[in-house]
């Protein structure tokens, strides 16, 4: 067995240990109400079990990282799969640091599912070790990517604590107008999380079924000399086509639930790279996510937010506010160093300029400005608590867009981190 194969196994072990860690945190938090024993004892005992399980998961994750490094010959942070797995590892590290300060098992109950989702999301992308292209052959691949990811990981913990704060303080029984608005937004946030889970689930289910559909797409383009030319491309889907590519013919298509033909055609103005396939994937994710959300609602018989809210009593919201702020305050200098300063140094060495308004650079700056605004708002009265928590939650969306959205939606120099 090669080192890389071994590291893949370690990765799967880490994934399951994280799942169990989450499960045990669930037992610690939810079970404390049903435990015969003193609930404090129950929380302490199961909290410790959950933390140790998570630590073992982290150890397996580290094993994955270093064996893949040794086996692949370069630090595994060079493509989307490797970066996302690394980000998940850093979120664990940030969680361990923050947990060491505050010792709140509740934090694990929210951070571990986040780690599980990121790990599963990483596995959507191709997992082979790809040898480095010349721009990536630099010591800064180690320095820039790792520090940037660690900074973002602390923002992720800030997000988890912010979401906890909201679930703790938003009263799901209240009929008051402003409270109902808050309830809706918290529920929407959870709905988005469910959609992301459904996206990962859909990718793996269809991959497991071996689903394939192929299209021949004709693209007509007019060159600058005014010459019209037609290009045909083959487009492959791994999910049943709800939307087929614009101006395309079915070449071969597996039937799915008796459907043999694509239902719709992607509108012509969607021209980005693989736009049709992405649209199709998004539509599938929303459909499956909505079904999954409905099932969860059926089981819980109330909104997810209300269900989580009910297991959170006894947690001090001020502590959550403080943890969220602290995580972000710890992450901010690391992010500045990794995602801006080290990035500028590397850009200066590799691309001959320290700053070039490349979309990835701009979005790193946007993330930085966003958290800069957050930290300055924390100086003002009235910006603690709920508002602050919302900013922390939205901030993580900005981070994730910088990490993934820029590569999927916008084009630029970072495209080699592709998918």
């Amino acid at each position, binding site marked *: 067995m090669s080192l890389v194969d071994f590291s893949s196994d370690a990765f799967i072990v880490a994934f399951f240990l994280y799942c169990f860690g989450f499960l045990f945190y669930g037992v610690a938090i939810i079970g404390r109400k049903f435990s015969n024993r003193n609930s404090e004892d129950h929380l302490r005992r199961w909290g410790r079990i959950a933390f140790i399980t998570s630590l073992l998961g982290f150890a397996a994750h580290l094993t994955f990282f270093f064996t893949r490094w040794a086996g692949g010959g370069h630090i595994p942070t060079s493509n989307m799969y490797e970066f996302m797995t690394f980000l998940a590892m850093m979120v664990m590290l940030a969680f361990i640091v923050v947990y060491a*300060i*505050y010792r709140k098992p509740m934090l694990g109950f929210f951070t571990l599912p986040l780690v599980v989702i990121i790990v599963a999301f990483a596995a959507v992308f*191709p997992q*082979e*070790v*790809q*040898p480095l*292209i*010349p*721009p990536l*052959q*630099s010591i*800064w691949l180690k320095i820039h990517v790792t520090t940037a990811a660690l900074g973002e990981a602390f923002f992720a913990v800030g997000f988890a604590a912010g979401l906890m704060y909201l679930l703790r303080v938003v009263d799901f029984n209240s009929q008051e107008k402003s409270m109902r608005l808050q309830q809706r937004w918290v529920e929407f946030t959870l709905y988005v999380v469910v959609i992301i889970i459904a996206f990962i689930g859909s990718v793996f289910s269809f991959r497991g079924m071996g689903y394939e559909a192929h299209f021949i797409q004709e693209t007509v383009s007019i060159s*600058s000399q005014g010459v019209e030319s037609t290009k045909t491309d083959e487009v492959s889907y791994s999910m049943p086509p709800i939307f087929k590519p614009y101006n395309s013919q079915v070449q071969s298509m597996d039937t799915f639930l008796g459907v043999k033909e694509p239902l719709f055609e992607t509108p012509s*103005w969607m*021209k980005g790279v693989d736009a049709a396939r992405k649209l199709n994937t998004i539509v599938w994710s929303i459909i499956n996510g909505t079904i999954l959300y409905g099932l969860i609602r059926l089981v819980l018989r109330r909104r997810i937010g209300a269900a989580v809210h009910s297991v959170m009593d006894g947690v001090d919201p*001020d*502590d959550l*506010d*403080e943890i969220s702020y*602290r995580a972000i*305050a*710890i992450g*901010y*200098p690391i992010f*500045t*160093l990794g995602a801006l*300063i080290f990035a*500028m*140094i590397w850009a*200066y*060495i*590799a*691309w*001959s*300029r*320290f700053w070039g*308004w*490349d*979309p990835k650079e*701009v*979005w790193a*700056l*946007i993330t930085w*400005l*966003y958290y800069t*605004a957050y930290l*300055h708002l924390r*100086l*003002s*009265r*009235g*910006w*603690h*608590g*709920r508002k602050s928590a919302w900013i922390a939650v939205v901030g993580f969306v900005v981070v994730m867009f910088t990490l993934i959205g*820029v590569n999927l939606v*916008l*084009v*630029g120099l970072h495209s080699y981190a592709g998918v």
Partner: protein
Amino acid sequence: MLSFENTKCECGHQNPVGTVLCESCGKPLEASEAASDMPLEMRYDGVARRSQKSNPTIIDRVWNFFSSVKIAVRIIIITLLAAIVGTIFTQENAFVSFDPATYYEEKYGWIGKWYYKLGLSNTYESWWFIGLLVMIGTSLVICSLDRVLPLYRALSKQQIRKHLQFINRQKTVYSAELKNDPEAWIGQMEEQLKRKRYRVHRDGTALLAEKARFSRWGPYINHIGLIVFLLAVLLRTIPSWSMDNYVSVPEGEIVQIPKTNYFIKNEKFTVDYYKDEELPEELKGTNRAKLYETKAVLYTCSENCDDPLLEPKLEEVKQHDILVNHPLSYQGLKVYQFGYDDTPKLKAVKPVLIDKETGQTYGPFDLTMRDPELNYKLGPYTLELKTKYMDFVIDSAGEPGTQSREPNAPAFIFLLKGPDLPEGGVPYMYFPKQNDKVRFSQDAINGDIGKRFEIKVPKMEDVTFAAVVSTLNVRVDKAMPYIWVGAGISMFGLLLGSYWQHRRIWLRVDNGRVSLGAHTNKNNYGMRAEVAAVLHKTGIDVEPKSLDNGGNKS
């Protein structure tokens, strides 16, 4: 607001207008602050800032505007939104070969058209975006000056015995009757606090303990660094401070770097791809680059540098293998691997002139693409070179022209003279490349003369191609050291301000009752834990949480 305000505190200290907490004893002065029982507003220790002058002039008003953190946050948010808008479509500077006036509309429709018309295709160079950055810079300077000086004054002359209201309205408070002797207990506290690395000052039964005051300067150091950084960015616009040029150097040749006395030689250019066995399954068969390398030699020129007719006098100064992450660097000049071109380009051909009627051939003659001879003698005939095009094109007006100086589609117009041809000669157009000859229909252009004569290359050996061209990016950026210094200062300040917290503990004992208040600029959780730990050492057990005076709530 302009009316007279009595700002003298009951302790006798005369405070400036705008003071929230007495500079000396800490008693809340401002009416709303004094009436509340919430924890005190401790920002900048409640001192008056310059922006709180009672009689503002125009300059004061501008100062006041930029000194507000709320305004600063607004400017940051607006800059952030503007930056987002700039990423919606590709910016103009990111592509070279399109005409932006038509590109956006063709690619993105009416949205693209307006994107271009509003100047958003050049967001980051636009006057309003740069204006926003200048405003951020101004705000940084004024916000910092407005606060750091009064804060410095307040922290350097602190009273030890604070007003009871001041102590009891901190975020971390403790108050109880003392069981043992106050003097002895305060002594114990002093010792325990010193163990926790506090600097302790005593004034009878009052005590002030303080640590990590330097962390308060972190944000200001950070802002100074950012200002240095922004000024350095401005410096880059000085013309002689920066240079950004591209040179294409064929293998084996020496080329002058434009507008400098430097010459650079490309001794060897290598592009290397990963072999199939090095690639994972799904990448096999693809060209995945492994190495781009130009073995380069840099020369300085001392004589005949700009005269193409004379041989320049060169002196070698540096040899370097330029890789993507490994530029050549010499006295502020940096040379980067940018690209390469290995598409075959004609360097020279050896054609012959054929008389189709007699089958007689004349020549061959040497025709080089760069700097060709002007006259060729071929038997009884002569060729006189009238015009040449390196990259031939018929433009929109139907006129012949050249798209570039690269010999992508070379074309030559000769004047053919000789026996039984008109006195002034006959023009003959010659495309050395076969596909150009067909594409631009050489025979139709030449007409009758083309039916009688033909210039052509008889065999492949008579064609020489130019070597692989390596494109190098030559840069000078004299502001870079200042950029890095600015970034370094900023980072240093950020570390100071983020990972250390300024903590102060005041306590006083009045008639056997101790009142303790503690303040930190960050991390009240840690502050409470530390106070509880110190109290514990002196025999007082309290839960850290019970010290919380509230005030985190929105």
